[in-house]
């Protein structure tokens, strides 16, 4: 077992375990902070998939932006939000959550079956890419290639996402303004 594989299992375990903890805890603040750990472990998994730039973006945007935003909104909403949590049952396996657990478990079984039966490692395009040396190797520098592709091949989605981001920004500012005249 190589070091890369050990690292993969380690980070995958941390990601899944912290996500499970974030799902099972009744403490909202702890749930948010454990979600940080999940995102960091996922960034590690992206690095193992040879996507360093995506990993850095994940850390910058998710951990630096989204989670701070969630914490900010949580702190703004006052302490009654915690009372909602205190009312619900503390246990992971309560009878009210049985449908949710059942749904997630059935989804899990079906999708694991699909993944194991699909045999993704022997897809024709994956094999062709390995044969043509089109697979990213650990010592390749991909960032300049991503930049060039972003400005040529993916220019239309790039523009679309920038317009969408502007719309979301204006919409969020409009929604969260103080109620003055309707």
């Amino acid at each position, binding site marked *: 077992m190589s070091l890369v594989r050990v690292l993969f299992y380690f980070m995958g375990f941390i990601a*899944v375990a912290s*996500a499970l903890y974030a799902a099972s805890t009744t403490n909202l603040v702890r749930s948010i902070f454990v979600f940080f750990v999940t995102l960091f472990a996922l960034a590690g998994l992206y690095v193992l998939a040879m996507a360093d730039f995506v990993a850095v973006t994940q850390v910058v945007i998710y951990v630096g932006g989204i989670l701070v935003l969630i914490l900010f909104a949580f702190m703004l909403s006052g302490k009654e939000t915690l009372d909602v949590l205190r009312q619900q049952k503390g246990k992971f396996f309560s009878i009210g959550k049985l449908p949710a657990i059942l749904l997630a478990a059935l989804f899990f079984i079906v999708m694991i079956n699909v993944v194991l039966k699909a045999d993704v490692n022997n897809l024709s395009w994956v094999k062709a890419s390995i044969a043509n040396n*089109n697979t990213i190797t650990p010592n390749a520098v991909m960032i300049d290639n991503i930049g060039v592709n972003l400005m040529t091949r993916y220019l239309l989605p790039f523009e679309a996402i920038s317009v969408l981001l502007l719309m979301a920004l204006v919409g969020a*500012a409009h929604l969260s303004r103080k109620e003055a005249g309707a």
Partner: protein
Amino acid sequence: MITLTDFLIVSVMLFCIGLYMIVSKRNAIQILIGIELILNAAILNLVAFGKHDATNNSGQVFALFAIVLAAATTAVALAIILNVYRKYKTIDPGKINNLRD
């Protein structure tokens, strides 16, 4: 060597945890975290398959787009949650039963 199946299995686990959070939680912020988990599972798939596309980088570029999309979604959703809290004094989605007034 890490195979694609390993990435897919981790991604399936994260997806199911996110699904469980969305269905069972009675708190809008934790539902949002569940949605983020599902998005991250999708991004993990994009990145894992994008490893085999060195010239076009389609997987990695669309993973970047998905991250930006998640940021936009979260900003709007949090604004909506703050508004809902101001109106109803709770963020339990089960207790919010009408859209306006």
